[in-house]
C-alpha cells in the first residue's frame, strides 16, 4: 500500500498527526494528556556539537595505555564528608512509586558496582534502595512524602529539589493506579487516590528562606553531608547565582529533555529550556562568583552517550545525571515487548505512559506481576554495563582531545554544527570563529 505522501497527500506542519490526536484526545476525554518521558520535540542538543580532536596543534593521549581519570569530588564547599565518585555519571532522582522496587534496586546495584551515586525521589527512601546504593542522595521535595530525619542522616548527600527540567514550576500527580498499599503508606495517603505533589515547598518561599532551610538541614546532619540544590532549567543564570548564595555545595541543572514519571504533555513540551542552553548560563554564573569547580555543577536532561557526557563536561559541568537513559538500559521500550506495547496502545520506541503503571518492562509500575519481570541482579548488571560504556566513551573522546582527566575537557575543544547550537552553547560554528551574539555579526 502506498503511503499518503506517495499518493501526493500533504500533512499539515501546523496540524500534524500528533497535534490532531491531541485535540481529539482532549475532546473525547475532557482531560489533558499526562505522560512520562521528557520533551520529545527536537531542540538544539549535544548532537549539534562536535569535538576538535588533537592533531598537529594539540597532542592526543594514547587510547588504551595512557590514563584518563574520571573521578569527581562533589560537595566539598561546606560538607565534612563530600562524595568521591569514580565516574561523573550519576543516577538522577526517580521515586519509588514512579519506579518499582526492583527498578530502584537495579539502579542501586549498578551504580554501586561502578562507584557512582543514585538518588531517591518523591516518596522517600526504601530499604532496597539504601541497602543496594553505596552512595545515595536523598531528595527533599515540596511534598515531603516519606520525609524522615533518620533517612536524612542515613543519606550520603541531600538534594533540595526546586524543580525538574520536564516541569519547572510544576508539582506532580501520581495517578491512583500506581498508589499501591506500600506506596500509600510511605506517603501517608489513602491507597488508590490520585496523589498531588505540591510545586512549592511548605516551609520556605524565596532564596532568603532557603538559605535558612539549608542551615537547618546542615544542623540536623551536623554539617556532614553535601547539600545539593536542583533546579529545572529556565532562568538558569540567576537560579545558579542564587543557589550559590543560599549555600549549596552542588547545583543540579535539569534541562527540558529531562524525564518525568507523570506530567502534562503541554508542560513537558512548552516549559523550560534545552540542556544545551542551560549549561553555559550555569557556568557563567559560577565563574562570575569565582565558584566554578568549587560549587560543583551536575547537568541532566538528555544525556544518552559518552559523547553527551564529554560535551556536558567540556561546557563546564563537573558531572552528569541520567534518568531516562538508565530506564532504557533496564529494558524500557525494548523491542522484546513490542506486542505488549501495541496492546496498551503504544509501540516499542514510543512508550511514554509511565504514569499508568502498566509498563510491560516492569520498571515504571507497582503491579507485582509486571514488576517481577525485572530481575534486580540482571538489572544491576545492565546499569553497570551502561555506566561503564558511558564512561569509556567519554574517556575515548577526552584522550583524543589530549586530556588526562575528563574535567580537563573545555569549551575550546568544541564547535557547533548549527547557528542555534553555537549561540546556546557559546562555542563557534564549525569551521569559523563565530559565536552568534558573542563575536560580532
Amino acid at each position, binding site marked *: 500500500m502506498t503511503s499518503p505522501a506517495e499518493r501526493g497527500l500533504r500533512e499539515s506542519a501546523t496540524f500534524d498527526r500528533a497535534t490532531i490526536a491531541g485535540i481529539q484526545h482532549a475532546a473525547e476525554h*475532557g*482531560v*489533558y494528556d499526562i505522560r512520562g518521558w521528557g520533551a520529545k520535540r527536537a531542540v538544539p542538543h549535544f548532537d549539534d556539537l562536535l569535538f576538535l580532536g588533537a592533531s598537529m596543534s594539540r597532542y592526543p593521549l594514547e587510547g588504551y595505555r595512557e590514563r584518563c581519570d574520571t573521578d569527581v569530588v562533589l560537595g566539598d564547599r561546606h560538607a565534612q564528608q563530600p562524595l568521591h565518585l569514580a565516574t561523573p555519571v550519576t543516577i538522577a532522582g526517580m521515586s519509588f512509586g514512579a519506579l518499582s522496587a526492583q527498578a530502584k534496586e537495579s539502579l542501586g546495584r549498578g551504580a554501586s558496582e561502578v562507584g557512582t551515586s543514585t538518588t531517591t525521589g518523591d516518596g522517600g527512601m526504601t530499604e532496597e534502595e539504601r541497602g543496594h546504593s553505596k552512595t545515595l542522595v536523598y531528595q527533599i521535595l515540596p*511534598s*515531603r512524602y516519606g*520525609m*524522615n*530525619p*533518620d533517612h*536524612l*542522616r542515613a543519606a550520603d548527600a541531600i538534594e533540595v529539589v526546586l524543580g525538574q527540567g520536564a516541569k519547572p514550576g510544576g508539582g506532580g*500527580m501520581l*495517578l*491512583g493506579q500506581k498508589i499501591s498499599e506500600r506506596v500509600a503508606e510511605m*506517603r*501517608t*495517603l*489513602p491507597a488508590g*487516590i*490520585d496523589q*498531588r505533589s*505540591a510545586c512549592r515547598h*511548605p*516551609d*520556605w518561599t524565596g532564596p532568603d*528562606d532557603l538559605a*535558612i*532551610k539549608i*542551615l*537547618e538541614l546542615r*544542623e*540536623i*546532619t*551536623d*554539617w556532614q553531608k553535601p547539600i545539593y540544590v536542583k533546579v529545572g532549567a529556565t532562568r538558569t543564570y540567576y537560579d545558579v547565582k542564587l543557589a550559590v548564595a543560599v549555600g549549596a555545595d552542588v547545583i543540579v541543572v535539569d534541562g527540558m529533555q529531562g524525564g518525568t514519571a507523570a506530567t502534562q504533555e503541554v508542560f513537558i513540551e512548552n516549559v523550560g529550556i534545552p540542556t544545551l542552553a542551560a549549561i553555559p548560563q550555569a557556568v557563567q554564573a559560577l565563574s562570575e562568583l569565582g565558584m566554578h569547580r568549587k560549587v560543583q555543577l551536575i547537568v541532566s536532561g538528555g544525556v544518552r552517550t559518552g559523547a553527551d557526557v564529554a560535551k556536558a563536561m567540556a561546557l563546564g559541568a563537573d558531572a552528569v545525571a541520567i534518568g531516562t537513559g538508565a530506564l532504557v538500559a533496564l529494558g524500557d521500550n525494548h523491542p522484546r515487548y513490542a506486542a505488549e506495547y501495541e496492546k496498551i496502545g503504544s509501540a516499542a520506541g514510543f512508550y511514554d505512559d509511565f504514569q499508568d503503571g502498566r509498563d510491560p518492562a516492569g520498571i515504571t509500575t507497582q503491579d507485582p506481576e509486571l514488576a517481577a519481570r525485572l530481575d534486580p541482579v540482571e538489572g544491576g548488571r545492565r546499569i553497570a554495563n551502561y555506566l561503564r560504556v558511558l564512561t569509556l566513551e567519554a574517556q575515548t573522546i577526552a584522550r583524543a582531545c589530549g586530556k588526562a582527566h575528563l574535567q580537563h575537557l573545555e569549551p575550546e575543544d568544541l564547535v557547533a554544527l548549527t547557528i542555534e547550537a553555537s549561540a546556546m552553547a557559546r562555542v563557534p560554528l564549525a569551521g569559523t570563529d563565530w559565536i552568534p551574539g558573542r563575536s560580532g555579526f
Partner: protein
Amino acid sequence: MAALRKSPETEADGGSTTLGEEARVIDLASSSVRELNAELHSPTARRYRVLSPRGTHAVAVGIDDDLDVHVEGDVGYYCGGMNQRGRIVVDGMAGPGLGENMMSGSIRVRGDASQSAGATARGGLLVVEGKTSMRCGISMKGVDIVVGGDVGPMSAFMAQAGRLVVCGDAADGLGDSIYEARIYVRGKVGELGADCIEKELRDEHRAELVELLTAAGMTDVAEDAGALGEFRRYGSARTLYHFTSEHAGSY
C-alpha cells in the same frame, strides 16, 4: 564549649519527666547554634536550658533523644525541626517552620508562631499557646497541633493526616485540598479551602477533642462543656481524590 554550664535552678516548665535533675545551660550569646545542636545530638545531660536565643534559626533541630529543652526567649526559623522524642518548650515567639517535619515528642510555644508551623510533621504534639500565622499545619502528615488562638490563611493546606485544633478563629482557605487530616475550630472560620467541608462532630470526635486539649494542657477548655460545644469539625469532601477536568474550578 565554654558556655555550657550546670544550672542549679529548678525548671519551672510543664511536660518534663525529669524534674529535679540539673539542667545544662547553653547560652546562645556565647555559644553557637552549631554547638547547641551538636550537644543535643550527643547529649551529656537530659535537661537543657537555652538562653539568649534572640531569634536564632534552627534552634534544637534534629533531636533524636529523650530530652527536655527549655528555650528562654524568641526563636527564628525551624525551631525543633524534625524533632524525635524531644520535649521542647519555647518561652517566647517562634519564627516560620516551627517543628517542621516533627516525628514525635512535643513542642510548646508560649507565645505566637509564624507561618508554616508544624509543616509536614508526622507525629508528636505541637502546642502554640498564642496564635499562628498562615499555613499552620501545611501538608501535616500525622502530627497533632493545638493552637490556643487564631490560625492564619491556608492552614492545613494539603493536610494528609493528624489533627489540628484551633481554639480561636481560622482565616480563609482552611483545609484547602485536604486529605485525611481532621480539623476542629472553636471560633469563626473564613471561606473554606477547596474540597474542605464542615462535618458532623460526633461523640468520638468530642472525645478526641478533649484528649487533644488535655494533652495540650488546655484543661480549662477541655473541661468546659460550653466551650467544647462551640467547636466545629472540618475535613475532606474527598471530591478531588480522582483528577478530572470537571473540577477545573477547584484547581
